[in-house]
């Protein structure tokens, strides 16, 4: 069990609003191993983002605990870097290069020349070398997300947390970005926890998929994926078909149960 990098145990997450106490997830367990491309998949509102925020410690669990490399997580920190869905996650007052350097310096990972070299290395990995001195507002949505990914990867965190980073992109760009992410992963085999509500994306990106039930999110299944989505020889069903049926089953139950 040495291989377990992130250990989430019995985590219940709640939001307190003015009038309500909303339970977003209920006693969720999962283990992410080193070099996993671990996907959290579930319908909208099932608490995927909330789970990711809890791992990043922007939100505290009311029950259960989260361990990273065996140590209980108790603060936000640069060992878990978050890539958000929003395009405004880049600092608009810094260029592409400065954005990446900023992350390295602010977190005191690297300084001076080394920070710049590391930044340029990862900017090259996402094919944005010629835009290194551009300001974010001059980039397209997909380019901004690539910068955010470069910034996250440059930190070389224990785990990269990605919350639907491609959701706001058009289908074509999205496919390209998925392929690019996989190529990047082949290069360094970083560990990534990836949130999506798209079944094809989960199957393409993930090697392990955690299926969450609708609100409040509970673990429904954990499946392996080889990225191929070929029909299973015994059942004749593809992985995405199986996932689809499992998610659909909920809706039917909900409809019947009222």
């Amino acid at each position, binding site marked *: 069990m040495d291989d377990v990098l992130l250990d989430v145990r019995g985590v219940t997450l709640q939001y307190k609003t003015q009038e309500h106490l909303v339970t977003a997830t209920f006693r969720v367990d999962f283990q992410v191993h080193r070099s996993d491309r671990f996907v959290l998949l579930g319908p909208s509102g099932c608490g995927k983002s909330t789970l990711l925020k809890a791992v990043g410690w922007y939100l505290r669990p009311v029950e259960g605990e989260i361990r990273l490399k065996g140590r209980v997580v108790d603060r936000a*920190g640069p060992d878990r*870097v978050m890539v*958000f869905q*929003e395009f405004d996650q880049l600092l*608009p*007052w810094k260029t592409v290069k400065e954005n990446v350097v*900023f992350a390295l310096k602010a977190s005191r990972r690297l300084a001076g020349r080394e920070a710049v070299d590391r930044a340029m290395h990862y900017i090259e990995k996402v094919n944005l070398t010629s835009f290194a001195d551009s*300001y*974010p507002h001059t980039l397209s949505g997909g380019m901004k997300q690539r910068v955010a990914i470069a910034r996250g990867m440059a930190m070389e965190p224990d785990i990269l947390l990605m919350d639907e980073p491609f959701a706001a992109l058009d289908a074509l760009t999205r496919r390209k970005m998925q392929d690019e992410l996989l190529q990047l992963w082949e290069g360094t085999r970083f560990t990534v926890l990836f949130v999506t509500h798209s079944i094809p994306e989960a199957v393409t990106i993930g090697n392990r998929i955690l299926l969450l039930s609708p609100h409040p999110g509970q673990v429904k299944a954990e499946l392996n994926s080889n990225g191929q989505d070929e029909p299973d020889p015994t059942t004749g069903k593809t992985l995405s078909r199986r996932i689809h049926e499992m998610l659909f089953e909920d809706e039917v139950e909900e409809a019947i149960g009222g």
Partner: protein
Amino acid sequence: MALERNEFIRRSVVGKATGVVQKPLGAWERLYGQAWARKLFLLVLLGIVWEAYGLYLGNELLFPTFGATMKALWDAVASGEMASRMAVSLKVLLIGYSIGVALAALLATTAITTRIGTDLLETLTSMFNPLPAIALLPLALIWFGLGTGSIVFVLVHSVLWAVALATHSGFLSVSNTLRMVGRNYGLTGFRYVAKILIPAAFPSILAGLKIGWAFAWRTLIAAELVFGVSSGSGGLGWFIYENKNELEIPSVFAGLLAVIAIGFVIENVVFATLEKATVRKWGMQH
């Protein structure tokens, strides 16, 4: 019955064949596109109207002509008096403005980091913001006597609340994503304010600085009009007041023009440059 239509695939034209993709505009078009050129034109027009009305009225004591005003202005500039008056005013202004902005930064920072700080800012600004700075002048005179101290006091008052309020609301409107990004990279406390909140809120901070400047400049001139008296070397306000007493009305107009000119330069040169170098360059404001 549907019409049969052929499918086709085209190659896109490249190179010169597409005609004009990008071409420079003509000189006039470019000049007219510049805001300063259009404004200069309007200024010239105003000058002409002024001169005409002055000549028509023919009463130096009520409304001197543009020419007479320019001559008075030139005399004041040539004798070096104008420069020294401006220097006095600007120095006091700069002192008051800097103290006001520094205090505003302090207040807004406490407000964003602690809840009691928020309450403090809200209470103080709602009390003092509606109070015209000049209304505090009598009190200031008792506390600091005749002189620079009193003017600086009212200047600080005129700057502080507007800038603090704008900065605070700027901080509050910084997106949640950027906040989380800052915390993700380990920024807390003062570093977080300096590296995330201030630049992210810069459009509203800049707006606050502009409003603060405008308040301060008006307050300064008004305060000087009331009592540049004591100190031998008064500022622009005192220049105006003095010349009115001596019925040098063209000089009064010249003084007013100087007040306008400084306001104009600061707004259209200093702040415009600052804006161009920051929020516009960053695409945070258009």
